[in-house]
């Protein structure tokens, strides 16, 4: 059969099916193979909170979107070019984000009367028959039937056979986009090494998918997406939480301190716990506490004992940790607090992304309780900023927030990873033992960074008490003295402010250093804002983009940087948080641009909004 190869620069594929259809695994495998092939890429897993929502329903639809190309890819893509729909519900939920004329690969078995009913499709309105898909390139494949046929002599039951369906789809898509399948075969062998029959079945179905593409007229068009011209070097694919966990371990190695991670499972932060619990041979101790409060408190105990102490959670858990963050601030011990933000308030939408915990990080405690706040902008950036959070906490004896969000935590991108020797050193010095004739140890004396000395239990002559009650500066004794409380409050703020001397200047990410409009973003919106800015620049607009990673304190030049633009727009996935702080601190009449849908920005909606503001 003759096939036609078409060269394309980039493509967005969205795999969508029931929660039990294995779409996340399919997407991850496709991502790995695509990364190894050399494309640049970005991914967006979009799944329900329910582990197994009712089968076949709209609530149970799980999707995985990948955008890959031979050019620089910043986002998982606004709209998909290809939609894989394993059932009627998946089609119904996802077709709105499919490009006009896009390809839909349909598992016809997922459109039987039962599935149509579960997806609330009215009688006689089967989208495969009512003409509603007329504008699309629809490819009907009876995945279930072919999978069952391929495995009818495998000895597996129908249930187990049907579980291999996703591999058929993966094989077919690999064929369509000229991806090698060997990597996935190796993966299957490893995953099912204790069950040869299941491993063989999956491999067979994967190959059947490929062969189906090769032999069926329907798939005569194949696409070539050449490797991207990326900076030379060694790459890997990395997800945000994975990168954060490695960044923490790197800080532990560089500071020569054992890592202690006290936490309580919560979506979407738990993967950091899962990863760290595998790294015990790095002298890592993970502690799954009875609740969020015990998670942070155990870490405070570990910090007192001289560990690199970290706690991690998402918004609701951070709310519970609030009092203990105040304690860490009073104790002036190093502590890293990770918040993988999700849509709130309360339980909100646990698997959906949002950036609405910035004000919580800034102000969410009783009393004057300033902390350092960093926010990662992409999956790989989680590595660098998790590392940086540890470095600042340890060198300044201060609690540091590391903010990420569900979008970059679960998203993947290629990463030209660093060599450990190129990472900064982290300087930690414990107070040396003392004898009776030495002068008395002063636990709240300070260095040029206003950091107090770290004196570990077990060190002779350093016996001292710390606590949540206000301390007298220098001696650390309890003090209700009026002037001292004001002094200590100012000192704790100044300690945060002084961190500005140790962080890089704010850079313009795209565009000129002055112009009509500055897009000022933070966190996981980086890719979408960068793409939007490039589109606007290409269209001749004098627009620039700066992305703030150090949110407290801000880089020292941020005010001056903003002053070079006529307008500053702050797009955020919240109801306006950074914009409040910017207005307060710099007296800049910044314009908020907000999206609060649990979904990331699309580049084209940002472009439209900016044009509207410029007009």
């Amino acid at each position, binding site marked *: 059969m003759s096939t036609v190869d078409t060269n394309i620069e980039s493509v967005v594929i969205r795999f969508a099916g029931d929660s039990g259809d294995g779409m996340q695994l399919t997407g991850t495998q496709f991502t790995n193979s695509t990364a190894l092939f050399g494309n640049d890429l970005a991914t967006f897993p979009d799944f329900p909170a329910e582990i197994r929502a009712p089968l076949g329903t709209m609530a149970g639809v799980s999707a995985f979107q990948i955008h890959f190309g031979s050019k620089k890819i910043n986002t998982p893509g606004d709209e998909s070019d290809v939609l894989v729909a394993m059932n009627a519900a998946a089609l119904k939920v996802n077709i709105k984000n499919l490009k006009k004329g896009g390809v839909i690969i349909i598992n016809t078995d997922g459109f039987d009367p039962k599935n149509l009913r579960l997806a609330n499709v009215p009688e006689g309105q089967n989208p495969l028959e009512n003409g509603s898909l007329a504008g699309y390139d629809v490819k009907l494949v009876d995945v279930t039937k072919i999978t069952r046929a391929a495995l009818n002599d495998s000895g597996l039951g129908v249930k187990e056979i049907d579980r291999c369906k996703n591999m058929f789809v993966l094989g077919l898509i690999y064929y369509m986009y000229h991806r090698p399948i060997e990597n996935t075969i190796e993966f299957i062998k490893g995953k099912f090494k204790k069950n040869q029959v299941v491993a063989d079945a999956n491999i067979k179905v994967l190959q059947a998918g490929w062969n189906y593409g090769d032999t069926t007229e329907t798939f005569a068009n194949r696409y070539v997406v050449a490797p991207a011209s990326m900076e030379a070097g060694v790459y890997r694919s990395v997800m945000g939480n994975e990168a954060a966990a490695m960044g923490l371990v790197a800080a532990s190695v560089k500071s020569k301190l054992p890592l202690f991670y006290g936490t309580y499972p919560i979506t979407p932060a738990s993967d950091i716990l899962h990863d760290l619990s595998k790294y015990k041979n790095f002298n890592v101790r993970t502690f799954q506490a009875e609740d969020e409060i015990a998670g942070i408190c155990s870490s405070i105990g*570990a910090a007192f004992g001289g560990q690199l102490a970290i706690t991690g959670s998402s918004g609701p858990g951070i709310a519970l940790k609030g009092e203990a963050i105040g304690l860490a601030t009073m104790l002036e011990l190093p502590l890293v607090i990770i918040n993988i933000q999700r849509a709130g308030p309360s339980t909100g939408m646990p698997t959906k992304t949002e950036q609405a915990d910035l004000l919580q990080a800034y102000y969410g405690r009783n009393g004057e309780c300033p902390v350092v706040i960093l926010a990662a902008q992409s999956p790989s950036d989680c590595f660098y900023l998790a590392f940086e959070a540890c470095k600042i906490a340890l060198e300044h004896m201060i609690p540091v927030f590391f903010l990420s969000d569900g979008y970059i935590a679960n998203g993947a991108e290629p990463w030209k990873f660093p060599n450990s020797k190129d990472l900064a050193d982290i300087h930690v010095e414990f107070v040396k033992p003392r004898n009776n004739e030495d002068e008395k140890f002063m636990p709240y004396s300070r260095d040029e960074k206003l950091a107090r000395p770290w004196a570990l*239990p077990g060190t002779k002559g350093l*016996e001292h*008490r*710390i606590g949540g009650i206000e301390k007298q500066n220098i001696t650390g004794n309890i003090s209700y003295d009026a002037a001292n409380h004001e002094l200590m409050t100012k000192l704790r703020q100044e300690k945060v402010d002084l961190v500005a001397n140790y962080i890089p200047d704010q850079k313009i990410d795209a565009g000129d250093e002055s112009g009509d409009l500055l897009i000022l973003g933070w966190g996981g919106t980086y890719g979408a804002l960068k793409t939007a800015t490039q589109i606007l620049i290409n269209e001749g607009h004098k627009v620039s983009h700066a992305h703030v990673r150090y949110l407290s304190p801000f880089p020292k030049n941020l005010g001056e940087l903003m002053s070079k633009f006529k307008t500053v727009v702050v797009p955020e996935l919240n109801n306006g948080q950074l914009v409040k702080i910017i207005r307060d601190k710099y007296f800049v009449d910044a314009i908020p641009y907000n999206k609060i849908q649990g979904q990331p920005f699309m580049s084209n909606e940002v472009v439209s909004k900016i044009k509207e503001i410029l007009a």
Partner: protein
Amino acid sequence: MTIEVTNKLTSKDFSSDQEVRWCPGCGDYSILKQVQTVLPDLGRPKEEFVFVSGIGCSSRFPYYMDTFGMHSIHGRATAIATGLKSSRPDLSVWIVTGDGDSMSIGGNHFIHLLRRNPDLNVLLFNNQIYGLTKGQYSPTSEQGKVTKSSPMGSLDHPFNPIALCLGAEGTFVARTMDRDPKHQQAIIRRGYEHKGTSLIEIYQNCNVFNDGAFEIFTEKSSKKEETLMMEHGKPLVFGENSDKGIKLDGFKPVIVNLNDVSVNDLWVHDETDLVKATIISRFYDNPKTEGHFPRPFGVFYVNNDRATYDDQLNIQVADAIEKYGVGDLDKLIAGRETWVVN
């Protein structure tokens, strides 16, 4: 040349320079004194002791000890101490807490501490009242107690702390009282020696807001009649003239008169028997009721077989290092699959 002379530590070495600020006559003074008496004799350098407390009158304790200490937040000393001990098993970690701090606001951490069993010591000052907030009923106050927050009497049924601790899988559960220094010292020493979490409930008189709560057990005139001093391997005998005992009739304890029953037929206290400890923990009657049992003091239960949390955690780390070698950061960062762009 200087010769370092190691002087034996004294209780003075454990007293900080901070003025003790409990109300005059408070039972806390006695506990502080006994701890400062026991610690120098344990043969351990002073710098290895850490006292962690939460909030409440008792939680001021660390300030008065010249050891390492942390006066933390309400109810959380248990969690902080667990993190400290897990990562620093070389330290001797002590938690000082009260009935409100441990069983009310810190109730969750308290039960999980006991089941995890890190090797640390808990001094639970039970005064059956909130002292620092000036006199509200606590989770151990008797039902019907008239306090500032319960003018018509409290509605809450109280905890039985010992039964709670046994239910939470505690491996060392004991009770002592502020007014019996010798007994207190012995129990504190045994708690220290136990490998695992040692829970010591100390009846402590709050002479301002709940004076005399334990008088019937501590006053010379009634102590012998109303308390049961348990000793491992010894029959359960009590009474003014040691003329009463406890006998087990099946699972049912009965008070017998030793004029009628031989001491050989009495229940012999066995600290290692959880079922018996559970029964005896239920001797918690109001001493004003007819036919009530005496209140037991001493060690209810010891389990020396359960591994400590800190040991297990550190063994896992050591095992992982032995099995996989010390982690290689570059290998970790590179992951399983990489590709080269030229």
